[in-house]
């Protein structure tokens, strides 16, 4: 019955969005984590989603779950800040701020929570339909 596959699909959507929320929370928490060298500074992380098409090519599939391919670090340039009095300042007096754009992270958070709610709605609706279908003919 096709409705059972909706559990897989909506479940995959929920887990992908919750991972996206985790990554957003991590970015926001580390928005001020300075360090003295470019290599050690926290870089904003973003998840990469892809549709989990099955390996058979050329066939149209009804339901395609979403898969998280991984989490990549943003390669946007870091901001050096001139603060010679900072305890972590390097030899030239610079500290490096992470490249986290707080506004972008907040919009990501709103979008992720909205998508998560949508997937939960679909899951609940399909569950009710299946339960009603089991009582067919009563």
């Amino acid at each position, binding site marked *: 019955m096709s409705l059972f596959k909706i559990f897989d699909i909506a479940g995959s959507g929920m887990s992908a969005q919750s991972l996206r929320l985790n990554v957003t929370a991590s970015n926001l928490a580390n928005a001020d984590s300075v360090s003295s060298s470019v290599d050690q500074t926290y870089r904003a992380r973003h998840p990469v989603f892809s549709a989990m098409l099955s390996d058979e090519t050329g066939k149209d599939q009804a*339901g395609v779950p979403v898969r998280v391919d991984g989490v990549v670090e943003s390669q946007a340039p870091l901001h050096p800040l001139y603060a010679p009095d900072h305890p972590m300042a390097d030899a030239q007096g610079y500290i490096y701020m992470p490249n986290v754009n707080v506004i972008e992270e907040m919009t990501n958070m709103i979008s992720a929570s909205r998508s998560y709610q949508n997937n939960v709605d679909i899951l609940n609706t399909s569950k009710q339909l299946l339960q009603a279908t089991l009582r067919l003919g*009563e």
Partner: protein
Amino acid sequence: MSISIDKVFGVFDEALTLRAKRGEILASNMANADTPNYKARDFDFRAALEQAQGKGGGLQTTHAGHLKGEPAGPMTTNQRHLTGSGGELTGIDLQYRVPSQASLDGNTVDTETEKGRFAENTLQYQAAFGFLSSKIKNIKDILAEG
């Protein structure tokens, strides 16, 4: 006189299956609302239902006693081979939804549209289910009276 169960259920049997498949596609659209380059899919329900009814299980028959060919699934040479089912859509014409707004990452899913269509599909599923259920109850009542 033989009772043909297929004729009793009429169109609602196929309608229920197709509604479930459409629900699967719409759920997949919603789950992939943030996937780059994902294109929203859907199919024309009326056309798919007519096609399923027109095939009538594979072949038009003029008499209930004639055999009907079964659609779907590849031919198997041995009874123990598995027939394909579930994942593929045999005979349903999946189309792409026209996006209302351009997007940076190539994703054409409009969440609100999909939500609306999913809600409508759910109601239609419940309607088809209600009709089917009442027909089954009728048969049960007739059998119980006998």
